[in-house]
């Protein structure tokens, strides 16, 4: 026994972790932005669509939600290019995967949000002569977004943690940085302590910040 903690090597390579953390955040932000678009479009489409479209959207959602993320990451990065003529970097491939992944979760979030918009608001919109499109843009979506904001923040924070899976295709995010330091310096316990603290601090800072945003919007009601 006798493992003496020595953080010097961690600080010497801290740029790997710091850069990794920034990349993790970047991956999460880009993916949720695309995921929100996917989620919104499909949710709005779903609530007004016929059975076939509903079945297709539901199949997409259920497939993504019930398959491990790591398998989806492999499938998109190693699998797809063997059957379709595309080439992309690991990073692009991961963003595509995580966007599709978050999109599937957000369809569900937005769909139940749309259903939670009070009937009276939609009727009021009708009564003042708004077209269906205007009702969607000015009545249903704003209310729905306010309702779904907490779920949206939770999804974002869990996406931030999910970016760690990008390390399996060597995207140099935070977990990859940890692995690099682990294999190159063997300061195993130290690096994972530091990385754990980094994930926790960032995650809870995000949570705190997003809760503030939520409170603001709730007050606006």
């Amino acid at each position, binding site marked *: 026994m006798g493992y003496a903690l020595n953080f010097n090597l961690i600080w010497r390579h801290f740029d790997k972790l710091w850069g990794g953390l920034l990349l993790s955040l970047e991956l999460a932000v880009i993916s949720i932005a695309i995921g929100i678009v996917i989620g919104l479009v499909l949710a709005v489409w779903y609530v007004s669509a016929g059975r076939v479209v509903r079945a297709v959207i539901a199949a997409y959602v259920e497939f993504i939600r*019930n398959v*491990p993320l*790591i*398998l989806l990451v492999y499938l998109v990065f190693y699998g797809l290019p*063997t*059957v379709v003529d595309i080439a992309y970097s690991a990073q692009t491939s991961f963003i595509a995967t995580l966007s599709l992944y978050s999109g599937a979760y957000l369809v569900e979030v937005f769909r139940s949000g749309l259903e939670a918009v009070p009937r009276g608001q939609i009727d009021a919109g009708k009564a003042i002569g708004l077209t269906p499109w205007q009702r969607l843009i000015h009545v249903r979506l704003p209310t729905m977004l306010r309702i779904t904001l907490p779920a949206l923040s939770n999804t974002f924070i869990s996406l931030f943690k999910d970016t760690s899976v990008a*390390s399996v295709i060597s995207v140099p995010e935070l977990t990859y940085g940890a692995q690099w330091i682990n294999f190159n310096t063997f300061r*195993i*316990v130290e690096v994972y302590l530091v990385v754990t603290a980094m*994930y926790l601090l960032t995650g809870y800072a995000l949570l705190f910040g997003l809760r503030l945003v939520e409170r603001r919007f709730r007050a606006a009601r």
Partner: protein
Amino acid sequence: MLGQILYALPFLAQGFALTLWVSLLVVVLSLIAGVLMGVGLVYGPAPLRWAVRIFSDTIRGIPILVLIFFVYYGLPAVGVHLQSFWAAVLALTLFKTAQVVEYLRGAVASIPKGQSEAAMAIGLTFRQRLAYVIFPQAFRRFLPPWINGVTDAVKGSALVSLLGITDLMQAINQVIGRTYEAMPLYIFGALVYFAVNYALSLASRRLERRFSFIRE
């Protein structure tokens, strides 16, 4: 293409069996640990409550992958030597335990306070209150999310492939390494995971609907 999947099928089946075995162990162990800690969180003295709260918030705040690497690489460094299989089970169990703690806390919190006050009023002891009043009701709130959460154990188990454990994920990668048939095998794997997890989430939804008529 199909022939190669057929040829590799026994090997893939072994991997799948390991995936199920890891998931089962994790689910059972985390259920025991999670319920005990959850009761500690709801009814325990302050220091215990704090300890469980910190445990749960820490575990849920970091990626499962980091937890798996931490346990796998970190334990030997401090002199604890586990087979990679057990390190993986331990890491996933920690992750699931934190989830079970939250399911239990949520389920117990959803039972109106009047229930335990009434139980106290008719002179039931703490244990009797839990056994006859709180738990039977909380169970209905606990079961659907818990069953749905089993899918997280199955999905999370795919990460143990990174420790060189031949679960379904790793078996698929090995077969691809041999045959270069990436897409059919990944799709096959996705369908297998899907079948297991979708069945679980359907069961969860059905139970939820069945219990939903019960109103306090």
